[in-house]
């Protein structure tokens, strides 16, 4: 039973979930580990999936939680505190060496992805979901447990933040 569920989920969503994770953590090895963890959680709990949301948004919500747990644990280790991680307001920064695909990107794309690391966690998450994963506003809202309005506003603020960061970087480079 679980095996057949795995095969179907893999065929339908594996590359999407993997890409989602690697754009968040920017490390292939960690993305592999986290995608493994996503399957562990999904297969443990699949019989409790009640179809309140689509299978796709359910799967991505678990992937999102796995990624946030990963960032939380890293931050928690750094701070020696366990109650202060608010992923929406913090950065979800990966200091990992970038995977080879990132190195092959154009200079502009590289700058843009670097700027994304300086956005708040909620902004980075929305950019990855909306632009890289091409998820709809409704799907993104379901995955994050937000209203559609919050998704739209956060997306808008994220683009504005990116513009501001990129312009500032440009000024510093030219000075």
């Amino acid at each position, binding site marked *: 039973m679980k095996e057949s569920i795995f095969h179907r989920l893999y065929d339908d969503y594996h590359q999407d979930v993997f890409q989602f994770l690697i754009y968040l953590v920017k490390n292939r090895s*960690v993305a592999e580990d986290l995608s493994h*963890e996503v399957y562990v*959680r999904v*297969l443990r709990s699949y019989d409790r999936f009640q179809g309140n949301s689509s299978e796709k948004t359910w799967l991505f919500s678990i992937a999102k939680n*796995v990624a946030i747990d990963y960032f939380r644990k890293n931050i928690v280790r750094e701070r020696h505190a366990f109650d202060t991680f608010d992923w929406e307001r913090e950065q979800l920064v990966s200091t*990992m060496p970038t995977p080879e695909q990132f190195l092959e990107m154009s200079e502009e794309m590289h700058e843009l992805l670097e700027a994304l690391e300086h956005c708040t966690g909620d902004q980075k998450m929305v*950019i990855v979901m909306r632009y890289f994963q091409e998820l709809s506003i409704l799907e993104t809202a379901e995955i994050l447990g937000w209203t559609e309005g919050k998704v739209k506003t956060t997306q808008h603020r994220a683009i504005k*933040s990116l513009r501001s960061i990129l312009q500032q970087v440009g000024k510093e480079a030219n000075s």
Partner: protein
Amino acid sequence: MNDNKWNEQDIESLLKQAPKIHDNRSKEDVFARLQADGVFDEEPLKKSRKKSSIYIGGITAAILACAIGIPLLNSNNEVEEQSADMASYSTEESSVGNRARDVENDASHENNAADNAMTMRANVMPSTSAIYANELVDNTLFTIGLLGDDTESIPAAILIPNEKILEDFGKENPTQVEMYNYYAPLLDEEGFAFNDYHPYKGEIIERGNTVVHILPEGHGYDVASGTMAQYTGSLIDTFKNYEKIKYEQQDGNPVTFSEAGEPSKLVKVEERLKFNYYLFNQRGINYLVPQIRSSFVDAKTAIEAMPDHLNDVFQSAIIDGINYEVEENETVHVTFTEPLDLASYDTERVLHMIEAILLTAANFNKQVVFENIVQTEWQGFNFNKPLPMPIAANEVPIEIIRNH
């Protein structure tokens, strides 16, 4: 691309071109690892049943690579999985947590990592919510008072590209009333987590610098003091650049609101804008709003009153524990009592504090000079000189206008 020419369209276009990144492992490899972890076993998976050497290796290598140390994680303070938002799936302890414990002593340089993390957090760039004059080069400002859940009106603004203005009006610089009558019926307020309020009932016209609201019978804006406050607050926020607002019946006579019991008088808009700003959370998004539209005589008293807030609906925009003194002459000087290191605080929170002060001073047509801040430049602000005066609070996306 010239670094100074990044615009939102370029950024969105580039984001859409982000390359697809694939997992190079085969399906069999992914399956085999899950199988080795006992995921397909019939009996319930036991915690720490089998260590995944691949997983540990991956995490360890990655952690070592960026010199992040791992202090002891014990079971007492293990972070709970934050999955309550999806009630339909398990909240069992994460195996990532087990594995984190497995590799707890694998790396060192903890302090360096913490320092790096602090530096990166200091660089966080939440978006400014206020709008400044330099943003009007290619855009036209449309102000609008939007209705929140627990506040009378949220003063908001939309930047509309000049190209769209030309398309919509066939001219540059339409008046605010013209923009209101065109865009208000198109606002998707509920879609952006506000209450559905616009357009106003009746008709909005202008006579010179006076906005006239011609109200129909039974308009209902005055059924309670709360609805009346929402209505007037929204009108002021929407038409804040006009001198006066007048309420008329359809026969041209002044409206008598039931709350007042006598014919309404002209509202002098500027007098109603002498308020200070507070933080208000509308369904997950923070906005800077007036608390009860208290009027202050000058910027000094308005800014000095900002640490006070009346109830839990509003939060002071001033961070707890930060004290300051205010002097006002041609500009407003806000001097922090202790040297203020902005990197010590959540960036978005600091940004809200600074912009709330800037917006409050702007209500009195004053610029602000901050003194005793450790940083000389921060997030585009240069603290060596008076900061630019914002022209509007709370930018909302143009997408709130349907078919924009």
